[in-house]
């Protein structure tokens, strides 16, 4: 089987970011190989309200915090996290 030419990831918006974009998640299809940054750069086209988010938000891939150059695979969950305020 040849490598997939594109991947689909679920982008999840947490807390304040869900308020900003008006929803909790969106499905984004991006060309492979994809990274956190490449998916983020395509987010505005899928969901214009995401333009109001900070350009480099804290991100988690499959529930672990990652940097912008982290590769993403088909089926991943990419979460955008406002600065944490627990405790």
């Amino acid at each position, binding site marked *: 089987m040849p490598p997939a030419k594109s991947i689909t990831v679920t982008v999840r918006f947490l807390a*304040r970011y869900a308020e900003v974009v008006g929803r909790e998640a969106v499905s984004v299809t991006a060309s492979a190989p994809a990274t956190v940054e490449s998916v983020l750069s395509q987010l505005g086209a899928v969901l214009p309200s995401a333009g109001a988010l900070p350009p480099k938000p804290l991100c988690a891939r499959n*529930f672990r915090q990652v940097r912008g150059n982290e590769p993403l695979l088909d089926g991943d969950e990419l979460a955008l996290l406002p*600065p*944490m305020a*627990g*405790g």
Partner: protein
Amino acid sequence: MPFLTEHRLVLDDLAAEVAAADRGAIVTFVGTVRDHHAGRAVRRLDYSAYPEMAESECEAIVAEARRRWPVAVALRHRVGQLEIGDAAVAIVVASAHRDVAFEACRFVIDEVKRRVPIWKKEYYADGSVAWVDPTAAGGTVPAKAPDA
């Protein structure tokens, strides 16, 4: 999902989880909801989490504490609506030695604040609402009105 809870935190229950006849030192930390934040009177708070990640981060923090020190650790964080004075987070660390219990307890609360994805929305006495954001000027960012 044992670390996040919508129920009231009871220190004695947590202490019972880690108590043992060879652990003579028990240090606990409880963070409660304050009635003021950045000079504004707070009425209540909503705590929300990214639950799957919050659970796995709490688990990792407890595991790391247990790797670094000879301790038993119990940790709980509230989510949902909290009132002034409610405990939002409770940590109980038990060890044979108090040095270690203090160090590990301090480590756990610092890590919880640093890396567990939990957020709070503050409802003020004047009717306004804001998200707590330690990186923002003034410590908060305005939220949509509660009914919006």
